[in-house]
């Protein structure tokens, strides 16, 4: 059905994306089933920046779009589907941000990092993750009950681990956590987001300079010694890569630990089962990733050539949004998809995206989630909410879904 252009509605008639988050069931993706037209795997939505984009919602088509070489991730290209306006372009803002680059340029940067995040490397980090988890649990138990699990556990664990891996001083966590929040906040102005990005860049620029001078045994020091010194990487590029890793490395996992704990408190049988058999943790983590899919606004791409996806002709220059959270609730791929089911075998989920941009830190994220949740279940078997379930405050204004707070007692 490629001849859809004649009957396409104008953007004013299209549902506005992103859809409002559901109030009644905040862990479910927005009420897409009501908003999307029928059963079409691909439909059109209006964008807050004007214009429209194709919205892809089924798992098969989401995987197809994200793995297809005709779709670009470069937000600076004309026609790219944007959820907020781009700040005025400056070269240094783009340097090293390989999440926004296409092959082959993308691969040049990503491959400087793949040995750092491979399964074996992350396995070597596991004792540090365990120590970190134990340390923050000790502190939380000593100070409580009650406690805010987000503040005392979910956020500090991945923050400290990524600091250790990158070689960023953890004592600066208040600074980079607050700037990351602003950067990922969907309701701040372009200027505010830009200001937060500038501050993070300036901070990491000083750190890269220090690594050049002092060396060290951490990812940034290795990047500086191995690539920057040899001329394979510029200073600004190293800074851009560091910004990307620091922001992605703590915000995402922190939100997953908080939300995952809430899910487990709603499924006490699963919480008890995890304590009795920590071997269930890998399957539990995959189902949590599928069920929660914290990148709620999907992954935007721009078609560089005409492509047919799900029976629809997408033309060069048109925007596409691959809606990960809805694809992970695709009934065709996951039976009874809205049900949380640890034993379903959720491995084909796209919570980390798909294609060459798929999250490079996924082995780290999985290890952190597994270790943090097992330790929680073993240490605090009587963990429960300290406020009514429907009063747990969600972060509705972030590109990364999560909890503002999770008041618990034990």
């Amino acid at each position: 059905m490629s001849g859809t252009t004649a009957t396409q509605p104008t953007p004013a008639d299209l549902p506005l994306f992103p859809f409002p988050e559901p109030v009644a069931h905040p862990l479910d993706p927005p009420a897409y089933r009501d908003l999307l037209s029928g059963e079409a795997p691909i439909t059109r939505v209006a964008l807050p920046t004007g214009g429209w984009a194709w919205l892809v919602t089924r798992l098969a088509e989401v995987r197809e779009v994200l793995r297809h070489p005709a779709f670009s991730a470069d937000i600076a290209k004309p026609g790219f589907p944007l959820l907020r306006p781009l700040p005025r372009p400056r070269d240094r803002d783009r340097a090293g941000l390989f999440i926004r680059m296409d092959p082959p340029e993308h691969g040049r940067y990503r491959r400087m990092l793949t040995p750092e995040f491979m399964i074996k490397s992350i396995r070597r980090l596991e004792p540090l993750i365990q120590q970190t988890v134990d340390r923050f649990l000790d502190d939380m138990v000593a100070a409580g009950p009650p406690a805010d699990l987000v503040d005392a556990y979910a956020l500090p664990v991945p923050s400290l681990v990524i600091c250790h891996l990158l070689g960023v001083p953890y004592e600066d966590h208040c600074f980079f956590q607050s700037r990351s929040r602003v950067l990922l906040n969907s309701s701040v102005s372009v200027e505010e987001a830009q200001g937060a990005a500038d501050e993070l860049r300036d901070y990491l620029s000083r750190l890269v300079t220090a690594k050049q001078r002092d060396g060290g045994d951490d990812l940034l020091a290795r990047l500086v010694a191995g690539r920057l010194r040899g001329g394979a990487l510029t200073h600004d590029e190293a800074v851009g890569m560091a910004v990307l890793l620091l922001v992605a490395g703590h915000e995402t996992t922190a939100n997953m630990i908080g939300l995952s704990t809430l899910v487990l408190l709603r499924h006490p049988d699963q919480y008890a089962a995890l304590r009795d058999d920590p071997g269930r943790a890998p399957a539990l983590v995959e189902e949590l990733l599928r069920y929660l899919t914290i990148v709620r606004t999907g992954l935007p791409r721009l078609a560089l050539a005409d492509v047919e996806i799900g029976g629809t002709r997408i033309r060069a220059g048109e925007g596409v949004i691959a809606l990960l959270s809805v694809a992970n609730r695709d009934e065709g791929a996951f039976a009874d998809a809205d049900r949380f089911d640890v034993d379903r075998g959720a491995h084909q989920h796209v919570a980390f995206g798909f294609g060459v941009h798929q999250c490079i830190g996924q082995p780290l994220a999985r290890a952190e989630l597994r270790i943090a949740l097992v330790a929680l279940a073993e240490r605090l078997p009587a963990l429960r909410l300290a406020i009514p379930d429907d009063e747990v405050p969600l972060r509705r204004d972030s590109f990364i879904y999560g909890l503002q707070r999770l008041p618990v007692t034990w």
Partner: protein
Amino acid sequence: MRVRADRDRCCGSGNCVMTAPELFDQDDAEGLVLVREPEAPPALHDRARQAAELCPAAAIQLDAD
């Protein structure tokens, strides 16, 4: 079943190593895919197929005997 992997396509996500560590590894220098067992025994066919399906870069090829 023959197992091949294209290191030029590989993006180092590690899904194959997680899914079928008997068949796949990553090299220390680049963190890219290595095939440990180019002839997958029947007991590993399902996981070989799963690794190929999960590979975000479509870097794994399987050929039935």
